[in-house]
């Protein structure tokens, strides 16, 4: 009996381990070297030469900054890349506000010079009172070397509530930010404004799919159109977690929780990523202080990936000169080489499948009643599209198990060695036929990346095809 129980436990454990092994993490994370023990570093911003971030570290061994009530103040720092992995010692980007107020989080406008950063709204005597709650606002400045100059406030700052953590879309037309302004869904919510004639429109709450009854913060509009943000809503890994959502036909889709190890049971927030989403940064207090981590995605995600083209065997045939005339006293009779025929100067026909078809045009002169048989013939070679092929339903429900297949891939001459699936929800699989289910509703872009065996020159050919699948909530 004991042996049997041990056997069952062993089987269960092995099964559990196998299940974990089938879903390996698709991210690797690494703590950045410029974090300093005892100080916090948050809110990275990727720039061409390095990272800009916020930290409450000392300016130098001799220069420290605290608020009127002794709290450490955050300032903006620049860490320049020395090489692909190492950064120089961060240097402070200072403004007239650096010594007395919190500065950051921030973002850069598409021009690379205009900085939108969070700071505090009240700067007068009131700001010095211990019991005064100074609310944050967004300020706009020009980056001149290591100085932030020409500061001016965002028009929707308000001394009665917080406005901060700005992010600007790739085209510069939208600004996203967090605020606890009245009218939200509870806690801090995310808002956006549109730039119209050089002026930011009234803030719009991103709605209940994005804004939960908890707190949403750190919006980041990625160049792909994904909006990453942080939320403490239930259902995550604990405390603050990073989610993303996308606009679909004007509506935000259900947010998707990023997997471990980006998210953890600690606070994980302020996510940013390179355009290809393969690398990026985020902040986490998983080692007690807020530190910046780099993530590297092991997911293969192609920036350039053709959309799946359904095989199409339909053609339009026409007598080129006849179609230019309104009416002609001729009857055009087409034989398509597959037993089908049609009549008219312009006809359409769908073949059943690939093949070589001889198209024959017979012409009846309606004046003389003469028939010219096979006046013209054409050979049409109907082929399938050369592409990897994703066989998958267009729509499924959440938690529905489906099998995705690459069986209809048509890449003549390729010796395919691998079928790699990126399901668009930060999960992957390898194989010609793979099972899949989605936990959350939304539209997912599936990429199938097919690799061939290396050729004699050791070159590996790859082809990528993508297809959207709509996952709707299970009724």
């Amino acid at each position, binding site marked *: 009996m004991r042996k049997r129980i041990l056997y069952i436990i062993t089987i269960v454990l092995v099964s559990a381990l196998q299940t974990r092994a089938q879903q390996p993490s698709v991210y690797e994370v690494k703590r950045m070297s410029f974090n300093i023990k005892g100080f916090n570093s948050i809110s990275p911003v990727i720039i061409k030469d390095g990272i800009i971030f916020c930290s409450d570290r000392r300016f130098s061994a001799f220069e420290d900054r605290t608020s009127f009530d002794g709290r450490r103040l955050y300032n903006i720092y620049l860490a320049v890349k020395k090489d692909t992995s190492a950064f120089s010692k961060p240097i402070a980007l200072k403004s007239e506000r650096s010594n007395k107020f919190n500065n950051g989080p921030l973002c850069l406008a598409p021009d690379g010079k205009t900085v939108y950063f969070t700071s505090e709204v009240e700067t007068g005597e009131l700001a010095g009172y211990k019991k005064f709650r100074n609310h944050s606002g967004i300020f706009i400045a020009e980056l001149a070397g290591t100085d932030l100059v020409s500061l001016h406030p965002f028009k929707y700052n308000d001394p009665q509530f917080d406005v901060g953590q700005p992010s600007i879309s790739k085209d510069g037309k939208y600004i996203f930010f967090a605020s606890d302004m009245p009218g939200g869904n509870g806690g801090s919510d995310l808002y956006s404004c549109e730039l119209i004639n050089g002026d930011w429109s009234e803030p719009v709450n991103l709605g209940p799919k994005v804004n939960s009854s908890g707190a949403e913060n750190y919006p980041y509009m990625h160049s792909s159109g994904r909006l990453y943000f942080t939320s403490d809503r239930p259902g995550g890994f604990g405390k603050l977690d990073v989610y993303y959502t996308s606009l679909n036909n004007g509506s935000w889709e259900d947010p998707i929780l990023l997997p471990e190890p980006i998210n953890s049971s600690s606070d994980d927030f302020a996510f940013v990523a390179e355009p290809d989403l393969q690398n990026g940064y985020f902040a986490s207090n998983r080692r007690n202080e807020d530190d910046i981590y780099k993530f590297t995605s092991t997911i293969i995600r192609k920036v350039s990936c053709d959309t799946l083209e359904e095989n199409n065997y*339909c053609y339009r*045939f026409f007598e080129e*000169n006849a179609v230019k005339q309104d009416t002609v006293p001729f009857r055009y009779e087409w034989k398509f080489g597959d037993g089908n025929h049609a009549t008219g100067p312009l006809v359409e026909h769908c073949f059943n499948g690939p093949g070589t078809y001889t198209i024959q045009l017979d012409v009846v002169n309606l004046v003389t009643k003469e028939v010219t048989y096979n006046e013209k013939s054409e050979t049409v070679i109907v082929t399938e599209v050369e592409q990897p092929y994703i066989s998958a339903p267009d729509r499924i429900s959440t938690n529905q198990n489906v099998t995705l297949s690459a069986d209809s891939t048509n890449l003549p001459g390729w010796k395919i060695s691998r079928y790699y699936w990126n399901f668009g929800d930060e999960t992957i699989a390898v194989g010609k036929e793979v099972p899949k289910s989605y936990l959350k509703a939304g539209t997912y872009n599936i990429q199938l990346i097919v690799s061939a065996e290396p050729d004699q020159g050791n070159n590996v050919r790859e082809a990528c095809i993508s297809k959207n699948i709509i996952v709707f909530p299970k009724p």
Partner: protein
Amino acid sequence: MELKKSIYKILFLVFLLGFPMFVRLSGQPVPGKDENIPFLVTFGKDGKTSWGDADFYQVFFFSILKDYTKPIYIRVFDPDCGGENDEIQGEFNTKTKFSVYGGKGVDPEKNEESRGLLKGLNYKSGNLLASKIFGNEAKYDNKYYTFGPFNPSEGDFNTKWNSYMFKIVCEGISGDDGNLYRYFLSSEPDNNIPIEGANAFTYAYHFRMWNDFKSVSHIYPYIDTGVVYIRQSNFDWDNDGTILVVSRYKQGISVPISDEDNWVRSNIPIEPQEVGSSLDFQFHKRQDDLVKNNNVVIELENQRGDAVKFFSSPIGGVPIYQPKVGYEKVKPKK
């Protein structure tokens, strides 16, 4: 090496000799053999236009290449009005005058009046070289009468065609019968011997249709540079079937046809590829009810109002339609 040179020399000579052969024409029967028209027709001036002649005269031009220097003859087949071929109205009482003109004033490209399109204008311009009036004369019935000899240089020189132009005018000067006749430009007075490089053309074609369902008549207007569309006018077609316009790029577009004693006009667009070649106006007779003795007039002008020539031997040869099939992928219909 020498052999190679010799071959090149031969090829060059063949090219020099042969090239003009390709571009020159050698048929001067009027109507031309490709036209398949039995007779030209001119009615006596007392006839009715509803019988198929709008103006009771017909003007034709002959062009002879400059380098042809031998005498030429213009032969008229069945010039009289009576007997087997001609169209009688009551009794034959018609006199027809044929006049040959040369010299300055004949060339219709320099002198529009010479084209004979508008009655009242001087279509008899030029030097009268010869003329003869024919009545109902059995000795000319079904026989040729020959005008000439003429020295080619008696014509009006046209630099564009590098040719001397002659003009023959046929007038129905009295009576009301229809005179049916043909011409032949010949190098001999008693035989029909074509003159190399010569051609014949008109601006207004008056002709007789076949009394046969199956016979298709043709005329071949030449499309000159700059023509975007042509405007056709046909007269007294008597609804006798269909006129199809054919070219290398037109399989056959039908044009509106006239009924009795009536002009009908329409525009025909010209493709850029058709410029510099001839169209084929095909006259298909109605198949259900035979219309006999149908005489037709047809004129063409381009978009500028300039008259278009009909050549008895089509410039560039008889146009044969070249079918062109195209295809493209389309989205399947759902």
